[in-house]
């Protein structure tokens, strides 16, 4: 009996039991006005190696880090618009190389020092100095020139080339501001919470690797984002992140009220928490969806018609309906639907085996042995490299493999560790890569596809993609950015540089006593408005 089978069996037992014992508890809706106080016990699936939001880019880390730091701006999850937070207003020059922020009054770090222009400069210079240790920030500040203190309340942040993406980046916790005193500790010390001094609504209290992380309410906090549900201090006295790696134990602990809320609910466990007093908040991740990213210089993928056939030969709704759950959306573009400037290209991503077959036939790929097409003795086959950053990756790819067999394409699946995937990606020695990337800005496409950045498709210099990618990064004006971003998304799919499959979705579950657990624009947890009742 396989491990997953056992876990499912246990989950089923739990399901039967909860189904029999659920007495239709109240949902969060009629819980009355928010009540301050109490501790939220939140079960998370992996131990964040490092809780400094400026350094590590995993969800586990950022779900903690977001509560500790404030950012210059905040992003509206509904519209993608950038709103005031530590900065009450800002100006951007014509070519998006200089961003001037005017800071609000009264914000302080948890060591009492003020959030002023000098502190902001110190923080940004320090993130730049972290280099690659800042997994996400180093990308946001790749062309960072420096920060000038204009006056105690004003900073001017400059870049060597147009960087429209920086406005959205300024809303992320990766560019959240830490106190000058924080940098008297080493980066490694900050990782463990030592000297991790932010101005956020919660302050770091303790960290036990593989056990739990505790944050405590910041007394006197009164400079929340304009998007927060209330002003003043957070409701919760404490947040206790409990690390519970085994999915069956996470769900069972929630069902038996040993936890108030959990993250990473597995597809098999989702039915347990529907309509029995439990709530399942979900939000798709913005950024690049899970996709087969083609290297156009390798094997059969040099043939554009083959790449287009693969795009048409994937049945996306079948993937989300069978391997995943209705909470996961089939891809409608290379960007997720929660990304600003996402364009719905569903017609290009419809399941069309006849169209795929016609493309392959016209390119000279004819039926061959074992149902796999051949051309001049070459088999129609490509390898995809993936790692298990998302638990269902293997099942999804096995289904895609079956779907592609129907058009005579042999997709070979190669699982690797994260470390190996990085190395393979670096070397360029791959045919298809399978991954997703979270970013609430279309500029992520430039980062991954542009010949001036990572160029994962190994495109030549004269390609149809670089121009629109540069255009969208040179202005923050939506009227100009939108058509450029749309053109880039369209080109990526039409040329088969990537075959998008589905949108990663964050699935949480919480019991009847937890309320107001929210997602910020990048689908990471925002717990400022969260509260617990009856504890």
């Amino acid at each position, binding site marked *: 009996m396989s491990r997953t089978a056992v876990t499912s069996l*246990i989950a089923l037992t739990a399901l039967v039991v909860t189904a029999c014992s659920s007495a239709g508890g109240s949902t969060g809706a009629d819980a009355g006005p928010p009540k301050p106080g109490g501790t939220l016990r939140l079960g998370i699936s992996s131990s964040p*190696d490092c809780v400094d939001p400026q350094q590590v880019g*995993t969800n586990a880390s950022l779900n903690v880090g977001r509560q500790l730091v404030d950012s210059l701006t905040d992003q509206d999850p509904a519209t993608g618009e950038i709103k005031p937070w530590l900065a009450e207003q800002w100006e951007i020059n014509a070519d998006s190389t200089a961003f001037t922020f005017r800071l609000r009054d009264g914000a302080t770090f948890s060591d009492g020092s003020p959030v002023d222009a000098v502190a902001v400069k110190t923080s940004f210079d320090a993130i730049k100095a972290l280099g690659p240790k800042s997994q996400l920030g180093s990308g946001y500040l790749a062309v960072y020139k420096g920060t000038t203190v204009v006056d105690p309340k004003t900073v001017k942040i400059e870049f060597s080339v147009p960087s429209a993406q920086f406005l959205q980046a300024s809303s992320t916790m990766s560019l959240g501001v830490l106190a000058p005193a924080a940098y008297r500790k080493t980066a490694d010390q900050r990782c463990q919470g030592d000297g991790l001094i932010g101005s956020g609504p919660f302050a770091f209290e303790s960290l036990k690797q*593989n056990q739990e992380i505790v944050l405590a309410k910041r007394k006197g906090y009164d400079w929340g984002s304009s998007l927060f549900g209330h002003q003043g201090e957070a409701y919760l006295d404490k947040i206790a992140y409990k*690390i*519970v790696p085994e999915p069956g134990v996470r769900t*069972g602990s929630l069902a038996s009220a040993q936890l108030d809320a959990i993250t990473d609910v597995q597809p098999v466990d989702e039915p347990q928490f529907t309509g029995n007093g439990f709530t399942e908040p979900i939000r798709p991740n913005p950024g690049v969806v899970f996709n087969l990213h083609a290297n156009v210089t390798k094997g059969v993928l040099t043939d554009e018609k083959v790449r287009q056939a693969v795009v048409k030969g994937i049945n996306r709704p079948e993937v989300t309906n069978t391997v995943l759950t209705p909470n996961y959306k089939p891809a409608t573009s290379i960007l997720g639907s929660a990304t600003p400037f996402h364009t719905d290209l569903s017609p290009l991503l419809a399941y069309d085996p006849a169209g795929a077959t016609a493309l392959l036939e016209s390119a000279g790929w004819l039926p061959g042995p074992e149902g796999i097409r051949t051309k001049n003795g070459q088999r129609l086959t490509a390898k995809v490299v993936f790692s298990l950053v998302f638990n269902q990756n293997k099942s999804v790819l096995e289904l895609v493999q079956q779907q592609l067999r129907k058009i005579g394409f042999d997709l070979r699946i190669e699982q*690797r560790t*994260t*470390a190996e995937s990085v190395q393979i990606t670096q070397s360029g020695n791959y045919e298809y890569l399978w991954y997703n990337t979270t970013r609430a800005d279309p500029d992520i496409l430039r980062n991954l596809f542009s010949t001036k950045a990572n160029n994962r498709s190994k495109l030549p210099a004269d390609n149809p993609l670089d121009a629109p990618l540069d255009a969208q990064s040179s202005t923050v004006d939506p009227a100009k950015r939108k058509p450029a971003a749309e053109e880039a998304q369209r080109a990526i799919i039409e040329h088969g540089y990537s075959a998008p499959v589905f949108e990663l979705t964050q699935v949480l579950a919480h019991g009847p006593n937890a309320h107001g657990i929210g997602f910020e624009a990048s689908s990471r947890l925002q717990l400022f408005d969260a509260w617990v009742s009856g504890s």
Partner: protein
Amino acid sequence: MRRYLLGRVLQAAFVLWAAFTVSFVILYLLPGDAVGAKLGGGEAGLSVTPEQLAAAKAEYGLDDPLPLQYGKRLVAAVQGDFGRSIATGDDATNMVVSALPPTLAVTGFALVLAILFGGGIAIAGTVTRYRRLGDLLLALPPLGISLPPFWVGLLLIQFFSFQLKLVPALGSNGFESLILPAITLAVPTGAIIGQVLAKSLRTQLAEPYAEIALAKGASRSRVHFGHLLRNAAVPSLTIAGVVTGNLIAGSVITETVFSRDGLGRVTSSAVTAQDIPVVQAVIVLAALVFVVINLLVDLVCPLLDPRIRHRETADA
């Protein structure tokens, strides 16, 4: 005796050096590296540039030629310094040492339970006059070995924690949280102990001295506790190393299922991330534990069995 001890200590040092060297070689032979794992962490989407990767490797001294890296690490390791974890930035020795107490608590408690269960079953199964009952009891160890520990753990949690709510399902707080993981770990360990002890008890039971004692009218239990156990204990003690290995390996599973901190979790995440300093600290510590346990067994066995003592002095 002194020469014997000195020889044993040299042997131990060699084992530790070999563990250090083999783990170093294996970690470098594996494709990928810790820095890659760190920079490409999860949601970051693996978008690191080659320049960033090279800069990070230089920072961790991973761009030195291999012999130089090995030499530096070995010299530091002898002084107990395995370097800083690449994944967490914490001191590797500190990570391993602080993960030791919770693991020792569970494994220690599990060992006590295992000796009670295993020993109890072996003794009861051989003491009893009822052949059928004895056979039934002695069928338990093979069953215990074949139950997958994570399944046993999940079942125990499901029943005692989720349903009956007697003990917490998570964490390492207090004695309550020790019970279920220790039982989970004690099942396979107890099975090994029970199997070996029962076999040697049956062998001893067929020896002339036992038959004579029984013929003289001593009760079965008296013969067991008066004569057999001491003689049967020696072979059971020699498998202490195997049992220890079983406990350490099992702790990875129990710590994951019961969401506890400990050496098992530290090891599994360090191996996944190819976090060389931490993996080496764990391996050398584990080798040290094995060496010490085997040395203790070799020193205790002669006290139980005079014949071994004579042989030792004849050698020395």
